[in-house]
């Protein structure tokens, strides 16, 4: 099946700042696709390019087969979008804003909107300026999904919301994926991404570092710990793609992608290793290994020696 969202060699600069650098991305349909990255990583810029609000300096972007720079109206018909701070007409009531918006979408929008605000327990006749932040976010989500979009884009939608509202947001994402719709979730809340995402992309300083199904990523990345007998000694790094390396006293710790099954054979009896272990990494550990510039990243060189200083 063709991709819901496709980016080819997308780059974007703001004066001297590189916001996105040569991004290539394909998002399959019917999944919750999480875009992870620290603040300023380029997530919002990427979403603005996808929704046609911003033109890329180079490359092509398409959503549901529509070109992002020339078919923005067609994209907006097929896409629902919720920003981190949706600015709604606060002098309208929640019912009025649904009625106002329903004119821009096909029939059925108003009925679905009413169902949703009832489901979300939003008071219908209260003006938006008198609603809580969570209730406003729910109104924005209801507007974004009432036309049953094929793609729902959420740009850090749960920031500043209480756990109950977050839970409702996350449930609605899973529900949409269950009926074959795609959700693109931009966030730096790793815990909630881990709960709902099928696919994960990690964006760091405008570069796409990892794009993989979440379960596959978590099973492919392991934390290898080796303890040596002297604090001055060095040992060879494990094979596979070492995402990061750190050392505390006599203990080495590597976050390794695609660790071979016979990895323990690399640390023979003569290497001075007293203890070896490997365990699955959490998404947070993977994220930090990719994004934390303080830990030492390594390429895929098979003959490498550990080079970190003693902590």
């Amino acid at each position, binding site marked *: 099946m063709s991709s819901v969202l496709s980016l080819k060699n997308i780059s974007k600069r703001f004066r001297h700042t590189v916001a996105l650098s040569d991004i290539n991305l394909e998002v399959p349909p019917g999944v919750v696709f999480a875009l992870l990255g620290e603040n300023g990583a380029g997530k919002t810029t990427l979403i603005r390019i996808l929704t046609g*609000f911003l033109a890329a300096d180079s490359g092509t972007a398409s959503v549901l087969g529509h070109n992002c*720079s020339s078919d923005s109206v067609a994209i*907006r*018909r097929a896409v629902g979008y919720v920003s981190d*701070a949706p600015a*709604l*007409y606060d002098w309208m009531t929640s019912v009025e804003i649904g009625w106002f918006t329903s*004119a821009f*979408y096909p029939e059925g929008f108003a009925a679905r909107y009413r169902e949703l605000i009832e489901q979300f327990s939003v008071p219908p006749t209260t003006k938006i300026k008198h609603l809580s932040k969570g209730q406003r976010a729910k109104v924005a989500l209801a507007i974004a999904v009432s036309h049953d979009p094929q793609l729902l884009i959420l740009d850090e939608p749960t920031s500043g919301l209480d756990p109950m509202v977050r839970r409702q947001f996350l449930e609605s994402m899973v529900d949409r994926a269950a009926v074959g719709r795609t959700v693109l979730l931009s966030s730096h809340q790793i815990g909630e991404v881990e709960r709902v995402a099928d696919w994960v992309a990690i964006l760091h300083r405008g570069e796409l570092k990892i794009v993989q199904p979440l379960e596959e990523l978590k099973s492919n990345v392991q934390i290898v710990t080796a303890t040596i007998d002297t604090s001055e000694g060095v040992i060879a790094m494990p094979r596979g793609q070492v995402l990061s390396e750190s050392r505390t006293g006599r203990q080495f710790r590597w976050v390794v992608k695609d660790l071979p099954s016979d990895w323990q054979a690399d640390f023979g009896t003569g290497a001075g290793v007293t203890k070896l272990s490997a365990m699955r990494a959490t998404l947070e550990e993977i994220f930090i290994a990719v994004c934390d510039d303080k830990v030492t990243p390594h390429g895929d060189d098979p003959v490498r020696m550990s080079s970190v200083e003693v902590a």
Partner: protein
Amino acid sequence: MNSAFARLVWKDTLLIRPLVLLIVVSAIASNAMIAVLHVSNYVSPLNLTQLATTLWTLLPSLLAFGAPALMVATEEENGTLNWLRTLALRRRDVIWAKLLVAIASLVAAWTVSTLALNLVLQFLPERYTGTTDTVLNQLTVGYLNIQLLLVGFVSSYLFRSPIVGLVAVVPLMIGLLLLDGWVAWELFKTHQSVVPMVIAAITGLLLLAWLQYRLGQSRLSPAHGYSYESLSRYPLPMIRCSTARSESDCRVSLELRFPIPRFAIAAKTMWSTEREAYLKSWREVLGWYGGQNDAGPISANADFLIEILREHANQDSARL
């Protein structure tokens, strides 16, 4: 009228309603006060007529001045225009709905103002031969109000801030009034008839309507038009704040930077030469002053001032 356009008209009507109500209430209340003043015999009827006529001209103009800022720039500032961009609606519907509502509001304000004026004029026996007396004069005032409204939309689409947009209307309107006067005079001189003037006025209004439409299109589609991000590619005036903190040194410095025009780079050599002559002349003036007064500290201050001037000149030169 399609339903999307109708909803936008509904929304814009509610947005502008407080301003329209304020103008209408002001027109009625001020004319009622003029009637009361006439009955009380404190002010001469001629003065009251002049006041009533001025208010009749001023109140709809206030609406024409404020409506675009309220409907475009305030929406931009509140972020609601940005939210509208995320919905599946056509940009032209947003732009024309705003203009339609603004013109309808202006006509409503003008109608109420005119009715109130005519009512109060019934009480005032001495007619003032001012702007209300001829149909042409009334049409001219109407034309100027619509022109002001359109210029307001142009300015609001050009500038994101409501205040900047409002301030920019003033020079734009002065320029257009000068142009109006010149065109009217030239046409009247050539044709000795008002018909070409009316045609020119309508053409001018249509051109302004088209211009605000184009600017509105740009504003509502930042991917194609201008935006903060695209503007930021160009050098803009900026204030850079730098801090240097250590145990012994804690200071904050501000640097005001302005865009350097291309021609300024060509003028670099000339500036370097001029700079030396400029510093020399300052040294002579200050040295002469210090010498005349035979004051050591003044002479020292002169050297210090020369150093500051030299420092600034070096910074400018480095930027060039």
